[in-house]
């Protein structure tokens, strides 16, 4: 019998900056049966999105399908004229993008955008479409299904928007749904609700689906079959159980391995603990906007936060998006002067503003940012970026600086030749290493790491964590490690602090994370982390409060 989708020997070419043609999809073939959900998994840049888009007969600007066929319900999307594809999009096959926040037109009401498919293809009257949309909202467990459509995209949360995107895709009654990393940008607590909603509507509609992700645990919950991609080629293909438990391909195994947290042995646990913490924060209050009459900012992002970090140890800070994690890092480093509270470095009080701090204080406390893309000046070569702190703090110049730069690149496992490259010519993982090397150049004692692994894919992130650990051993560093990903925190921290709405709700040693949490929010957070078990999602009790 005929499959819903048959992809045969698909080849996609892209034009490189210099006009050279490169093949980014190198002959991919797989099928999707009616009602089956197939997951595409692989590292960043492996071609997942590209393949997903070819299912709609679309390629990004600069790319072209150069060979093979993509059959949807028997019709070849590659050979079809553009008008024919236009007619299929939204009706036969629909797409749920990675970032719904970006995919919604900010100047139109949600309802108008949800029913747009019906209008474009004249599937039903606008009123009928609206009725159907409300039904879908209800099915997707959106709050206030009757009125939520009247809002604008910025007036709903990320998780809700992601479900609205699904509603937008579903309204045309497609046979095939494509989800492109629909939960990657969400908090774990939100992710679980969204996954649940997707799973239920898919089951209900009996539709076929493609689910793109790099997270094996998420895929395990929703997919029937997994296709593992790397470098534009299929590495391995099989039912979920088989991939999870009997993976044949080394890359798949690497993926699985990166998922398992490596137990962390503290570097300094073994040494005699000094009583003097290297960094201490007392009752820090900080926020944004003008100060109010009570001396507090308009938007308080940190409400009396205290914590301490022992020398040679690591402190994890965890919490959902917007809980104030980054604000804490900015307040400690003096970028956002706190309105009250104290920051002590090695028992010595620091000025609230970075500008007022001495060079030496600044040197001892370094900060590394999440997005390596924006944290590195795109116009300066790597050597300059890493060398600047050497000149600035240590007055090194010329050959001495060159030599030290080389050492630092060695330290973060980058080839010395990278010195001459611009950041734009590096991969995400490499950028993050440069970012780290720059902090190390200052010869700091404490490094504040703000989500430094969140933008990396799992295999690369694991390597960076390993590197951090090694550096700590060699250089006696202490880290404040901010993340929303529990397993990374577990992999590197001694103590963990859970934040919610600018307050610390719980502090506990990393070893007691599982099962040790007392605060209900911490419990929710920890229990929401997906497991590699395909039945995990159904086993977690639904909880409306997370919405």
């Amino acid at each position, binding site marked *: 019998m005929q499959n819903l989708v048959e992809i045969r020997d698909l080849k996609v070419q892209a034009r490189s900056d*210099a006009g*050279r043609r490169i093949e980014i999809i190198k002959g991919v073939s797989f099928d999707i049966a009616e009602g089956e959900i197939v997951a595409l998994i692989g590292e960043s840049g492996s071609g997942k999105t590209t393949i997903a888009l070819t299912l709609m007969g679309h390629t990004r600007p600069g790319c072209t399908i150069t060979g093979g066929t993509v059959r949807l319900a028997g019709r070849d999307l590659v050979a079809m004229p553009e008008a024919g594809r236009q007619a299929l999009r939204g009706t036969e096959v629909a797409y749920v993008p990675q970032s719904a926040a970006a995919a919604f037109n900010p100047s139109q009401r949600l309802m108008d955008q949800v029913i747009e498919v019906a209008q474009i293809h004249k599937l039903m009257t606008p009123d009928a479409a609206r009725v159907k949309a409300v039904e879908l909202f209800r099915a997707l467990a959106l709050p206030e299904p009757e009125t939520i459509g009247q809002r604008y995209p910025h007036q709903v949360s990320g998780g809700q928007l992601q479900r609205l995107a699904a509603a937008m895709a579903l309204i045309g009654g497609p046979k095939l749904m494509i989800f492109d990393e629909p939960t990657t940008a969400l908090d774990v607590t939100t992710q679980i609700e969204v996954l649940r909603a997707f799973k239920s509507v898919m089951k209900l509609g009996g539709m076929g689906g493609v689910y793109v992700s790099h997270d094996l645990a998420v895929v395990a919950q929703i997919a029937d079959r997994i296709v593992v991609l790397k470098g534009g080629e299929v590495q391995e293909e099989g039912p979920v159980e088989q991939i999870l438990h009997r993976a044949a391909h080394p890359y798949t195994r690497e993926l699985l391995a990166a998922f398992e947290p490596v137990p962390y042995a503290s570097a300094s646990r073994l040494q005699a603990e000094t009583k003097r913490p290297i960094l201490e924060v007392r009752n820090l209050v900080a926020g944004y906007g003008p100060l109010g009459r009570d001396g507090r900012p308009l938007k308080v992002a940190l409400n009396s936060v205290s914590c301490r970090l022992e020398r040679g140890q690591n402190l994890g800070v965890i919490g959902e998006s917007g809980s104030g994690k980054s604000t804490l890092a900015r307040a400690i480093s003096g*970028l956002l002067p706190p309105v009250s509270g104290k920051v002590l470095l090695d028992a010595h009080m620091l000025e609230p503003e970075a500008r007022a701090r001495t060079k030496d204080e600044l040197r001892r406390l370094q900060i590394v940012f999440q997005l390596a893309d924006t944290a590195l000046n795109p116009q300066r070569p790597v050597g300059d970026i890493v060398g600047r702190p050497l000149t600035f703090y240590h007055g090194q110049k010329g050959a001495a600086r060159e030599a030290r730069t080389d050492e630092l690149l060695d330290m973060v496992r980058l080839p010395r030749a990278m010195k001459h490259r611009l950041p734009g010519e590096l991969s995400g993982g490499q950028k993050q290493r440069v970012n780290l090397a*720059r902090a190390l150049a200052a010869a700091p004692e404490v490094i504040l790491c703000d989500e430094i692994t969140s933008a990396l894919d799992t295999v690369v992130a694991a390597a960076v964590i390993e590197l951090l650990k090694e550096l700590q051993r060699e250089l006696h560093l202490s880290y404040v490690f901010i993340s929303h990903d529990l397993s990374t925190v577990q992999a590197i921290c001694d103590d963990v602090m859970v934040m919610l709405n600018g307050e610390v709700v719980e502090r506990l040693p990393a070893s007691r994370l599982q099962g040790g949490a007392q605060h209900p929010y911490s419990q929710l957070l920890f229990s929401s982390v997906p497991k590699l078990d395909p039945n995990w999602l159904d086993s977690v009790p639904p909880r409306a409060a997370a919405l």
Partner: protein
Amino acid sequence: MHTKAFWPTPRRLGYHMNWVGMIAALVVCFWALVAVIGPMLSPYPPGEIVDFDYYGPISAKLWMGSDYLGRDIFSRVLMGARYTVGISLAAVCLACISGVVLGMTAAVVGGWLDTGLSRFLDALNSIPSKLFGLVMVAAIGSSIPVLIVLLGVIYTPGAYRFARALAVNINTMDFVTVARARGERTGYLVTREILPNITGPVLADLGLRFVFIVLLLSGLSFLGLGVQPPNADWGSLVRENIGGLPFGAPAVLMPSLAIASLTISVNLLIDNLPVKIRDRSE
């Protein structure tokens, strides 16, 4: 591993420019060259009346005909290049340098400096440029330095606005924050972190502004404020010979062509600026 110099090889780093851009660049270079050496090549002094005929046609003696007084247009166009290209270039550099420096500083320092500068330059910008030029020339007289400064001042607010908007965006980037956290001073932030990231758009803007300055200069010539005779910029040449337009006299067509070729080329050059290419997908 051997110590081979890791200078990017041409395969990895190059400049690409299409043929339109290339032709435009050639024309611009040509006029720049004429501005430098042109007057040495001119067959007659620009002020000498060499022909008793006026609006004369192209001939072996007068390569571009004669003007309304019977002077050699070819010599005058060569001489005008120096003024049009020179004044406009100096003015555009002045406007862009001051605008960009002020804009970046305002964006980085913020606060009152930003507010004050923005308001003041906005105020300047709101005065129509030709009338501002008219009042200022009436007030302080016309000479080449005055013209350059005047045109520079007129176009500074625009450059400021543009540079400030770009710099404000760059200023929010994490790498600037990192530099701040490191304790860097404003001077470093402006020159090393912000400037390299806005040069592209600023250059494009500079080119467009150059065109506007050339045109404003000719507009000022129309109002009788411009370069001193017997010298003249191209705008003045067009203006003083406009009476020859009905006969299609080369005296009016040639300087017009010169202006058009320069401004169109500059525009096309900007639109097709060479793109720096590093092939990232290897």
